[in-house]
């Protein structure tokens, strides 16, 4: 088994952190293997940002991904650039706060106002955790408690509760969206 995930948006949205937490959850709290890579421009804020995670139950030789099974896009530019590359039959999670149009692809598109939800919870900076909750809730690639353990390890002291709350908000949203899909 080798599964490829891509988290894409703008610098400052915390997508590299979210990717590290996802990889860390697998590496440190399950028997799965994981690697995480990233691509970013020279800017310290803004600019396109992309973080990739490969989760596998075997050796991961080639550490980069080409056609992710699951893709998160949190900026219009990221949507335009990366959605066409998603694997056939894969999943695209779209932050409708910033992404207004999604190229047509043969994949399941999940739309949710991720950043708006984070604002409601208190601070937009935890949008990455709402997104991670959605990603984990939809793909079920790793147990929720493994991710929570990784969140607590990684986020700044004193922000654990807000980050966990945001993650669970994402998990809940995934459940709702899925039951709505099943109801269709």
């Amino acid at each position: 088994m080798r599964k490829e995930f891509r988290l894409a948006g703008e610098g400052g949205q915390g997508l590299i952190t979210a990717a590290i937490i996802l990889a860390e959850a697998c590496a440190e709290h399950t028997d799965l293997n994981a690697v995480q890579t990233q691509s970013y421009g020279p800017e310290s804020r803004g600019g396109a940002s992309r973080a990739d995670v490969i989760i596998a139950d075997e050796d991961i030789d080639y550490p980069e991904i080409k056609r992710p099974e699951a893709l998160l896009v949190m900026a219009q530019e990221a949507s335009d650039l990366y959605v066409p590359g998603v694997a056939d039959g894969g999943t695209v999670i779209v932050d409708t706060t910033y992404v207004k149009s999604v190229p047509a692809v043969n994949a399941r598109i999940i739309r949710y106002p991720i950043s708006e939800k984070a604002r409601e919870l208190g601070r937009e900076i935890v949008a990455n955790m709402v997104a991670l909750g959605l990603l984990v809730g939809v793909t079920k690639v790793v147990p929720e408690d493994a991710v929570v353990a990784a969140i607590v390890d990684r986020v700044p002291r004193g922000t654990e509760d807000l980050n966990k709350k945001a993650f669970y908000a994402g998990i809940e949203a995934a459940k709702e969206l899925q039951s709505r899909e099943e109801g269709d």
Partner: protein
Amino acid sequence: MKDAGPKLLQGNEACVEGAIAAGLKFFAGYPITPSTEIAELCALRLPKVGGKFLQMEDEIASMAAVCGASLAGLKSMTATSGPGFSLKQENIGFAVEAEIPCVIVNVQRVGPSTGMPTSPAQGDVLQARWGTHGDHEMVVLCPSSVLEAYTLTVEAFNISETLRTPVILLMDEVVGHLREKVVLPSPQELVVKDRELPAGAKEAYKPYAADQGRIKGVPPLARFGDGYKFHVTGLTHGEDGFPTNSPKVGEKQIVRIWEKIHSRRKELSRVEMLYPEDAEVFVYAYGSTARSAKRAVKEARAQGIRACLIRAMTLWPFIEDVLSDVKKKHPKAVIVPEMNLGQMVRPVKRVIGDACPVIPLNKVAGQLIEPEEILAAIKEAV
């Protein structure tokens, strides 16, 4: 960081943890992408283990500070990338000539000049060998994984300390920034070597007399501050450390510092061979490119092609013996994928000669070579 069990670690972080496990006590540097995390983490970690971190005014001064700290007895390291590596070359030569143990990390990015700061390349493999002037051997180690960024950093220190020489750890952006699951060796499993200190009378100490110590061709090194008075210079010198113009004394010294490494090239050779037994097509690869090559060789085997990976962890001294053995196996081809326009392919070609085609596979787009590209080259070669 958690103490035991599997963890997710970045290549640059693993390098720092390896250095500290090897006894690093001094880091001087000037942060530059994609090596910056090494400086950041040294600043955080070194004060907690009784070490010192200095951010210097530039790379030249960083390398000078590393030389000074090492002469004072501390295991010392610096880290940089392309433009900084160029600036460090003069003082790396000083460390070669004055026989100062130290480790220089270069996390390669695309060049020439400032190039592409956040993108990977392997364009410095010949510079690492010959970047500083004059006749000298150089030890250059090259990790392909996060775990190796740790273990080869420990080895770099061990080699540097025992042979009194600078050692270059040549990473690339992919390995430096990659995070992967690793289980680090426990402190008990690690072999950590220290430089040999002089034993005789302080007044009689000769800093460059190679017959005084246990390690052939390597003079014991006193710590500045311990009361041994000695002279250190970049000029060719005699056993007392003072400059000489004597052809005989000068040549003896130049040959000795070359020979102490050259004569040990076999024991310095670190190579992983994957499926060597019945192979007919060989792939020589190193650094992150070797990961793609490994994938390609596994895939070739799955398709019934008898391919073999020669993964070099030691780039310099060149693994001549290994390639000579490959030559004896009557290979159909040796493929050399590199993120440069063909650098290590030259020493490979020099050993293989006309025995079979030596095929370069090159990319300088700031992107890792893909397994499919190497597989296609393997298929074409059989």
